């Protein structure tokens, strides 16, 4: 028996949970509340924050550039997640229809891309898009550019890099559901005269909608939090909230401001979550 024989039944279930409770309350719950508290503290130019309460950090955010940055980050997250899922969904579908050996190979390959830090991925994109590497000559050959120039920093580089980062996560979240999707179901729909598009819409989509929503959400949140890619591959006007938050904390030494910005970003993430859940549910009723 777990714990000791003297511990009554109900308590017995609680004993193994004491360490996880301590860890999660102490290291997630309390720090989370602390963030909200510090966002309401006055800044201290010589330290991190000072005692007392003030809404200075929030009122300092009531301007046009901040609203634009927040909207831009929000839009970028939706764009990246939508593109990530629309590439990741067919990719995962094809992988699940492959032979076992190929599936394992693809999965190891996708997991291997996770072993490169986003710092290194951003760096390799910088190399890949630099003037020295052949890729920059491609637009010249296609007549899109006068002469070879570095393709970074640019919005396209940030977008491409972020899609790269979310792609393995979309596959990993879609894989369980798509893998368990019985091929007979699609066959049956086709036998009954459904075109591939109709079969997809009426059979595949309703069964995989939940997984697709989770995959979209994880990609969007990953993008909202991405710091390195926009910083390294973008111009200042391509910087997302994540970069601005990092700058406020590291360069600006204004921790209350960084905290208040984080709270705003969290609200954006919550709206995104709510919206995704709402859309996923709404489609289910039809």
């Amino acid at each position, binding site marked *: 028996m777990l714990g000791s024989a003297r511990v009554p039944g109900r308590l017995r279930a609680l004993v193994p949970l004491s360490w996880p409770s301590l860890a999660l309350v102490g290291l*997630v719950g309390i720090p989370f509340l602390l963030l909200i508290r510090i966002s309401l503290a006055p800044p201290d130019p010589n330290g991190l924050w000072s005692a007392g309460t003030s809404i200075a950090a929030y009122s300092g955010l009531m301007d046009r550039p901040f609203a634009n940055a927040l909207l831009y980050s929000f839009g970028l997250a939706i764009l990246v997640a939508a593109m990530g899922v629309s590439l990741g969904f067919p990719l995962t579908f094809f992988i699940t229809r492959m032979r076992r050996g190929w599936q394992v190979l693809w999965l190891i390959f*996708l997991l*291997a891309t*996770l072993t490169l830090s986003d710092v290194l991925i951003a760096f390799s994109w910088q190399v890949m898009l630099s003037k020295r590497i052949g890729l920059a000559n491609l637009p010249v050959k296609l007549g899109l550019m006068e002469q070879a120039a570095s393709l970074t920093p640019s919005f396209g580089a940030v977008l491409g890099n972020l899609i790269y980062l979310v792609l*393995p996560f979309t596959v990993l979240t879609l894989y369980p559901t798509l893998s368990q999707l019985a091929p007979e179901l699609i066959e049956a729909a086709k036998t009954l005269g459904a075109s591939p598009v109709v079969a997809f819409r009426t059979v595949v989509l309703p069964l995989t909608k939940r997984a697709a929503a989770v995959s979209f959400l994880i990609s969007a949140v990953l993008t909202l939090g991405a710091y390195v890619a926009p910083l390294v591959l973008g111009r200042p006007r391509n910087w997302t909230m994540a970069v601005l938050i*990092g700058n406020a904390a590291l360069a600006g030494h204004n921790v209350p401001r960084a905290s208040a910005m984080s709270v705003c970003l969290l609200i954006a993430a919550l709206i995104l979550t709510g919206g995704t859940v709402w859309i996923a549910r709404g489609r289910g009723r039809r």
Partner: protein
Amino acid sequence: MIARAARLSFLVILAAFLAAPLVIVTGVSFNHEARMNFPPEHLSVLWYGTFFADSGWRSAFGRSLGIAALASLVSVSIAFPIAYSTWAYGSRLARWLEAVARMAFLLPVIVLAIIYLVFWSWLGHPGRIENTILSHAVVFVSLPLTTIALGFRSVDPALIEAARTMGARDGDVLRRVLNPLLLPYVVAGMIFVFILSLNEYIIAYMVAGFEVETLPIKVFNSLRMGFQPSMCVGAVLFMVVGILCFSLVAAIGDLPKLLGGSAR
């Protein structure tokens, strides 16, 4: 026929897209000159020598491996009891804890970085290696929680029934029956945390970046100071570690099943 060709070219293009950074970083690491030439002009392993001769790079590499290993152990120690209590007792507290763990994973990383910057400073404990380890352990706990819960779900109830009929108690069932069955799922969860912790930059930087320089932090710092091929060596080493880990999992377990796919 056309559909097949379209599918094949889609897969080839995506594979090339995904492989490009891995190939470029590997290529640049074999350059002879200290330049980011690709493809490398004169092949050499010069920078591998430089990497291991430089105590700065070596210690950053070792430190990252140590942090990742400890974070994955702590993470599993939190995740396993939660998954067990949910499975064995349908505990409501366990479900609450799971929700907290999931929430931590669904926060934007930059927000987590600020949260832990504030938290460890508030405790008067900034710049310590424990901060990085514990922060990574709780941020990524959702992953072992997912794989271990998947493991519990895959256990055949008849096995547990049989063990109980033969007089096994909870502890015996856990030790003799569940542990061997769950081992691959636990290892898979640990490896996920290990890999993500190894590569995580912004949280590590915010909680202790000046004192505890991990490899991603060192790479980022040297990126700002100018290019050194040694950083690509570090990347290649991480890739090799990662691919070895995942291949090991695929060899001892059923990788598609561990990731939640259908059984063979």
